[in-house]
């Protein structure tokens, strides 16, 4: 057994001379990647595993499903639900708006500088998240924000009297869209660039109308990378906390804010319930990423 695996190794190691080098090689072989793996295991994998195992233990360290079952209490379900709704709404709006902008700048016949300016700005805006983004939206759509005031004085539309509030579902969604759209643009523009000119010409030669070309060529080709990106945006919004916390304090009870409060002060009075909430978050973003990888491999078939 050992003999076979060792000779296998010598074959894959290509240049490895027999005998003495074999025993010398192995440690140095791994030395270069050792810091990376030690770091990843200690500070990424183990802490996550620790929480995931903790979600299935009680205070005495025995196995239990009680913590997971306790997630079913209304306040926690509500937190998950509103988180999912905000992430879904902001990722869908961001995705469609981002796609429209990407198509406009790549295929719309706009001047070249618009394309490069949009891409540069998208790079900046997709990283402009967190607390400062919340400030920007408070200054825009808060009660004294510029847009609120102008809508009220110029157009006579008092959005707050009509039920809008920046500290609400739609307020937060509209804010998240500010980093979701640019992220979509940055990711989807290469996919649209990947549409070959020949396909359009081939379709035209075969007598396809513009709408047929879009419906039967463009959309099927872009679809997988589009869906994949939607999922990435979803996970992106689901784990975000800083913007929401700075915007709404703890008045909007999304999951990350609930977990934040739990870590700070054990508001649920059960340490292991905190683990279970973290576990639930990992399950949701993890599932999202499984789909993402799946769509990604499908889209790569076309975009080479």
């Amino acid at each position, binding site marked *: 057994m050992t003999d076979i695996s060792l000779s296998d190794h010598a074959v*894959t190691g290509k240049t490895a001379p027999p005998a003495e080098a074999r025993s010398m090689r192995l440690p140095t*072989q791994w030395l*270069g*990647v050792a810091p*990376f793996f030690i*770091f*990843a295991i200690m*500070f*990424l994998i183990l*802490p*996550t595993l*620790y*929480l995931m195992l*903790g979600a299935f233990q009680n205070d005495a360290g025995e196995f239990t499903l009680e913590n997971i079952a306790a997630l079913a209490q209304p306040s926690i379900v509500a937190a998950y639900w509103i988180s999912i709704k905000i992430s879904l709404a902001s990722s869908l709006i961001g995705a469609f*708006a981002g796609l*429209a*902008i990407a198509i*406009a*700048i790549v*295929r*719309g*016949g706009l001047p070249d500088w618009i394309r490069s300016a949009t891409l*540069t700005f998208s*790079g*900046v805006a997709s*990283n402009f998240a*967190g*607390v*400062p*983004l*919340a*400030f*920007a*939206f408070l*200054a*825009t759509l808060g009660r*004294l924000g*510029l*847009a609120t005031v102008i809508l009220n004085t110029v157009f006579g539309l008092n959005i707050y009297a009509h039920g809008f509030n920046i500290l609400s579902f739609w307020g937060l969604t509209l804010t998240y869209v*500010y980093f979701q*759209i*640019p992220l979509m643009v*940055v*990711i989807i523009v290469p996919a649209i660039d990947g549409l070959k000119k020949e396909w359009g010409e081939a379709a035209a030669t075969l007598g396809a109308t513009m709408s047929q070309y879009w419906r039967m060529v463009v959309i099927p080709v872009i679809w997988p990378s589009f869906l994949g990106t939607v999922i*990435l945006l979803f*996970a992106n919004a689901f*784990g975000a*906390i*800083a913007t929401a916390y*700075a915007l709404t*304090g703890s008045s909007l009870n999304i999951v*990350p804010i609930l*977990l*934040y409060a739990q*870590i700070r002060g054990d508001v649920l009075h059960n340490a292991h319930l*905190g*683990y279970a909430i973290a576990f639930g978050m*990992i399950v949701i*973003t*993890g599932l999202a990423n499984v789909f993402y990888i799946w769509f990604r491999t499908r889209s790569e078939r076309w975009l080479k």
Partner: protein
Amino acid sequence: MKSGKFWAWLVFALGAAYFFIPLIATVEFSMRMRRGEYSFDAYKVVLGDARFQATFGYSVLAAVFTIILGVLIVVPAAYWIRLRLPQLRPIVEFITLLPLVIPAIVIVFGYIRMYGSNSPLPFLATDTGTNALLVIGYATLALPYMYRAVDTGLRTIDVRTLTEAAQILGAGWGTIITRVILPNVLIAVLSGAFLTFAIVIGEFTMASLLNRPAFGPYLQNIGANRAYEPAALAIIAFAITWGCMSLIQILSRFAPKSANRPN
């Protein structure tokens, strides 16, 4: 085609409006501090605030250490995988994507539970340890970007030939990495570094839960207690992000092919 162009302009104009109105509103709001006229008072107050200087300095320092740690972990690994262990590539790529899957708040929660004062590795028992843990946490957040930047940089050079040439000239591994490989991927590393800086400088979740006097928690605190200063801070933060991204763009012009942020 004419109508297509019209729609393209319309979409672009709507997008531009959505993205510029908040920026304009924030600038306007930040200048309203003095009653009845525009002024830069809010900026003066913010920049003159001792806590601003302290927390900003702290976060800059944390970002610098994060970049150093990230380079030390990522460059040897990415290099070694290209040179000797290509079979590990899928595993390493998977690991570097994990920070995008596991929310930062979950990672830091894990740290708090695993490295508390009573644990075998009590990072949180001392101030230095907690600072180190924050830098470590930031390095995990930056891992996906750092790894891709470096890996893209390595793709543009012939790692094997360079290494063999250096070996023939008698260079050891340390010399090869620091004097042959690193200078060749320096631009890629710097792009990763600036992106890391942009991510780390205003980071809130980890710094706040580890109780560090960083810029992110300071921002949040000002936001909860002041009116005009937050708008000024938002503009400053936007300018910093803009600066980092511009530097990456400028750097990418010097790169062999494209060492830009990969997506």
